[in-house]
């Protein structure tokens, strides 16, 4: 069993209630879909306990709602692990990760500006790139879907 497989197995055992799905594309690319309420616990596990490095977060608007992928890197193994959450509903919101690491600060501000996702307990959810560039309340990366 490879290191990645061992790691996934023990994560699944420890957090069976939080993990919804694991997709292993290869030994170096894994996506773990979790419940939005478990974000801080799972991110804490990978960042603080397993010492993964936070790369960045990608947010996109799909038919399911707002999806966010938090990308973590395990440098010694060359592994990219994506923590995937799906936020449904009219007012998408999720807990901020700034309590765990400072690197989440700017990217959460940006995701808030481009998609309108609210990050709870973020220290200063003010504009990063949009001031003067587009109007208040406009979320340029949102899409229209035909039902």
């Amino acid at each position, binding site marked *: 069993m490879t290191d990645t497989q061992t790691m996934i197995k023990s994560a699944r055992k420890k957090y069976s209630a939080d993990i919804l799905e694991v997709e292993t594309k290869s030994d170096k690319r894994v996506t773990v879909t979790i419940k939005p309420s478990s974000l801080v616990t799972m991110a804490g596990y990978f960042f603080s306990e397993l010492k993964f490095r936070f790369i960045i977060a990608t947010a996109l608007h799909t038919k399911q709602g707002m999806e966010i992928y938090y990308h973590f890197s395990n440098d010694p193994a060359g592994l990219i692990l994506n923590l995937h959450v799906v936020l449904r509903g009219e007012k998408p919101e999720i807990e901020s990760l700034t309590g765990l690491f400072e690197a989440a600060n700017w990217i959460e501000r940006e995701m808030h500006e481009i998609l309108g996702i609210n990050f709870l307990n973020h220290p200063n959810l003010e504009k990063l790139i949009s*001031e*003067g*560039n*587009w109007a208040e309340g406009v979320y*340029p990366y949102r899409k229209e879907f035909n039902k």
Partner: protein
Amino acid sequence: MAFKDFIFKKSLWLFHFGGASCNNCDIEILDCLTPRYDVERFGMILVGSIRHADVLLVNGSINQKDKVRLLELYNQAPKPILVVAIGACGCTGGIFAQGNTFAGPVDKIIPVDAYIPGCPPKPEAILAGIVKLLNK
């Protein structure tokens, strides 16, 4: 026109304004100062303040925030001033013209006297463009 010819006869002082650019053009403009192209032998230098400048070099696709600054800069510039739009982005907006923050190519914001296209234009092209402008 005699006054304008008189003041632009000697060495020109350049001021550079970079809009929302990828920096290729900025680096090529700075390259003009380096020993291979050495624009200083013509007496041209890059100055730090628009109030000392004879030529305003603008590059980059201008976004909404830069538009405000560019207008302010142009108003502060001592007239007459020659404006040169450098690079594909300065001339027409280039590849960023359909972006959601694009605020029009330079000539929609301030009057432009010369265009130097290229992505980026080589330092030889920039110098040739400025010399051509002088001889106009």
